[in-house]
């Protein structure tokens, strides 16, 4: 196991293994910040971070003293195991698992597959390069993909199953509870841990992993023909497997919870725990009133935040409001070519004097004077930015993504479809022209945050959940 020991564990405290895929501690953002909050808030537990990433990277967070170890697993790293003869009964198990899954949506035989691979240390590529595997693949190909290129089907199978089988060979650290922050490969790890160590598994989904992957896959030009369906099916199935093996399935808001249930999560296991912020840090920050009307977006300059959409909106708003300033607050170095595109767009619109890229910054300095916070993202779960802006006393205009409509009380004035810069601009202009309405929003939003989105409550809830499930499994 590639376990890097960090701080000395406190033996009197239970150990939680956080399983994070493509986020903490290597990628900054909402999910990673949330994990950091949970760890620093719950000092009565030891934490092990099990991070799954696509490539080698440096941690972007400094680990709190209760983080005792880090395991970084690369999905792309080859797994080397000694050559072994694979018995026929493995393939019988594989076929029986697939039949149950395809015909009855029953995933119970997953544990047979996992135990087989994990106990015997089979090399994933050896399993895939076996003639029986090939025969199984051609058999399913003739059912599911009879009219199109076989090679597409084969490659989709090779690449998707290679990752899954690799994960099944991994050694997982021992812990008292496994907390996975998504379904997908992280969820698969959690399911494996559950089978191997029989410890409780908690799942917190910020977005919905399978739905997000589905959007990615539909957009990707390199995924051809049936490959698309196969990948989407696999991500859906991975979600279902994660739900099956989780003791408690947490979503941030009701809509996602219902989608989880539709994907196979048992209702009695599901729970909604919204995000939380440190309200005191933001409460009534807004103290300054600059002469320009100030509009900000708090986001990393990356495609998913659709900063270009914000810039187009800025152009439209600038035509109606003469004294206006736009602040793009967030790191610009994550996708430099996208950032350059954004700068060029600003120059083409000739609004350089009105748009400021702040780079990575302390957002609270900007909450002091911003009049409106805009969110132009293509995809969000339950953005912390909205909660912060609410606490700071700033109204929000946003695209209709994730939990945002509910957070904005389904107020059509403030909501726009993704990519609809015109509608975003109309929302901003409406707020500019209606100060009374702005006042009203500020008051009601602030109350809502204090009541429902307090970080203290969030931490306390997780503390209780951890304790409950750990004791449930130790009795």
């Amino acid at each position, binding site marked *: 196991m590639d376990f890097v020991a960090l701080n000395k564990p406190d033996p009197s405290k239970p150990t939680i293994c956080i399983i994070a895929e493509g986020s903490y501690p290597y990628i900054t953002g909402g999910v990673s910040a949330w994990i950091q909050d949970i760890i620093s808030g719950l000092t009565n537990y030891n934490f092990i971070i099990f991070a799954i990433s696509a490539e080698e990277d440096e941690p972007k967070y400094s680990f709190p003293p209760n983080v005792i170890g880090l395991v970084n697993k690369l999905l792309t790293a080859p797994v080397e195991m000694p050559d072994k003869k694979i018995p026929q009964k493995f393939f019988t198990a594989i076929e029986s698992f697939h039949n149950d899954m395809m015909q009855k949506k029953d995933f119970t035989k997953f544990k047979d597959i996992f135990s087989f691979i994990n106990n015997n240390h089979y090399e994933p590529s050896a399993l895939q*390069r076996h*003639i029986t595997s*090939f025969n199984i693949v051609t058999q399913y190909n003739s059912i599911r*993909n*009879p009219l199109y*290129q*076989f*090679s597409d089907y084969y490659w989709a199978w090779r690449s998707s199953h290679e990752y899954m089988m690799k994960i099944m060979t991994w050694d997982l650290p021992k812990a008292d509870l496994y907390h996975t922050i998504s379904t997908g490969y992280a969820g698969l790890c959690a399911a494996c841990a559950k089978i191997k160590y029989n410890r409780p598994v908690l799942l917190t989904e910020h977005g919905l992993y399978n739905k997000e992957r589905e959007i990615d896959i539909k957009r990707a030009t390199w995924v051809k023909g049936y490959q698309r369906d196969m990948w989407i099916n696999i991500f859906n199935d991975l979600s279902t497997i994660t739900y099956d093996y989780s003791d408690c399935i947490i979503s941030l808001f009701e809509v996602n919870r219902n989608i989880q249930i539709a994907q196979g999560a048992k209702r009695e296991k599901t729970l909604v725990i919204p995000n939380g912020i440190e309200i005191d840090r933001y409460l009534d920050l807004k103290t300054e009133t600059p002469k320009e009307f100030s509009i900000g977006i708090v986001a990393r300059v990356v495609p998913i935040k659709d900063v270009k959409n914000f810039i187009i909106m800025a152009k439209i708003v600038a035509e109606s409001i003469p004294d206006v300033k736009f602040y793009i607050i967030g790191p610009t170095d994550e996708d430099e070519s996208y950032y350059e595109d954004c700068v060029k767009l600003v120059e083409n619109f000739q609004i350089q004097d009105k748009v400021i890229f702040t780079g990575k910054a302390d957002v609270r300095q900007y909450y002091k004077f911003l009049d409106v916070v805009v969110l132009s993202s293509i995809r969000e779960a339950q953005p912390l930015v909205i909660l912060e802006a609410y606490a700071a006393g700033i109204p929000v205009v946003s695209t209709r993504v994730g939990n945002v409509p509910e957070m904005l009380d389904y107020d059509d004035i403030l909501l726009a479809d993704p990519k609809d810069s015109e509608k975003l601009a109309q929302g901003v202009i409406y707020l500019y022209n209606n100060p009374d309405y702005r006042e009203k929003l500020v008051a009601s939003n602030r109350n809502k945050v204090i009541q429902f989105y307090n970080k203290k409550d969030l931490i306390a809830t997780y503390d209780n959940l951890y304790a409950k499930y750990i004791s449930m499994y130790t009795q």
Partner: protein
Amino acid sequence: MAGIGFELYKILHKGTLSSIIQAFFLGIIIVAGPWILSVLTIYIIQTYTFGAIADNPALFTVSIVYVYAFSLFLTGGFHYVFSRYIADQLYIENYVTIPSALLTAIILITIVSVLPAIGFVLINDFSFISYHTLYILSLLSLFVVINILWIMLVYIALLKAYYKIFLSYLAGTITSIYGVLYLGKLYGVAGALCGYTIGQAVIVLLLITISQISYPLKKFTINKEFIASFKEHKRIFLMGWLFNMAIWSDKMLYWFLKGEHIPGTLYYYYIPYDIPVFLAYLTMIPGLVYFLIIAETDFHKNFFEFISHILEDPFRYIQLKKQKMLISLKNGIKGIVFFQLIWTVGILVKLPQILDFLGYSHTINIAIMRILLIAVFFHMLTLNLMIYLLYMELQFEAAMASCIYLVLNIVATLFSIFYVQWLPGTSYMLASLATTLYCSFYLYKKAPIIDFIIFSRT
């Protein structure tokens, strides 16, 4: 590399008797030109021009046999990699790299062949030969020339100029015979060898000239990609190298363990086995020609039909094309076996008369000849099966087959010489039979799952 095979196939399919004879005649020139002509030349020289090499007839023949045997023994692997590289370039239609690969091959093979040849000359004492400096220089040159000739033999399969190729062989052979006669009279064995070498050099130069017409070398460059391809094709290299070692190992063991010796030299020869071997080798030609013109061309067509669609077609169509290819493979092998069998059996039946006609009835043991005819039948079959294995990307199995061939031939020959006193050729026959079975087994086992093999290797 079935390029010229297709051309001959076209001639064959004109359907007239003369076109059939023509196609097979040209096929013989392509598969066995220099090799038949060398046997023929030596035969003519020994039969009619004894006087020219009278002072040491064995020395002249043994020198030439050593050059042929050791050139194949040393560089057999090289030919297969070169052939594969050229075939790959043709497949991707990258014609510019072909002449520079030839140039690179010639330079490499010259370097590789000169060093051991100089070593050989140094450990021998040739001072007893009159004009021994001329002899040594001729021997060195002949070794390099013959090594280049093997490379050209691979290369000319590309060219459509088979008449020019035939004329080159003819011109070279006449030069060789005349050279042996003329220079042999003046300078004895040294002169004869020099004359022979000049004739072979003429063949090489003419073939290079012909190749320049088809694929002109525009710039004098070394093809580094070709050199690098040895790493990728190391199994092919091994297969070719070990195969040639295998088929020569029993002959060499007989030379060194039972043969006669020319004092002062490392030259050994074993007349009771050497002459039948070279005659028996000639019987392989019909099978090789059949493979070149009929079996390989048909298989090549079906194989590439299969390969070029494997990434684009639905599974059902891939299977259909695979079935067609497998049928072609089966028919090809059946055809070769049938064709070669009739021929071999025919010779076996009429063997006494044939030996009588050739004037060998007193020098050749008819039993050894019979064993050798059967051995050569399996030797030829093994060679063709190995080419099929290479088509199927079963390089490991092909290399293993060569390895088995070599080990079995050495072990069985030693066993035969020291323990059981089998007739010479028995060990070679058994090793050839075993290797044929080995190759057939893997072809039978792996060819039907070639789609799996291709997908799982990528």
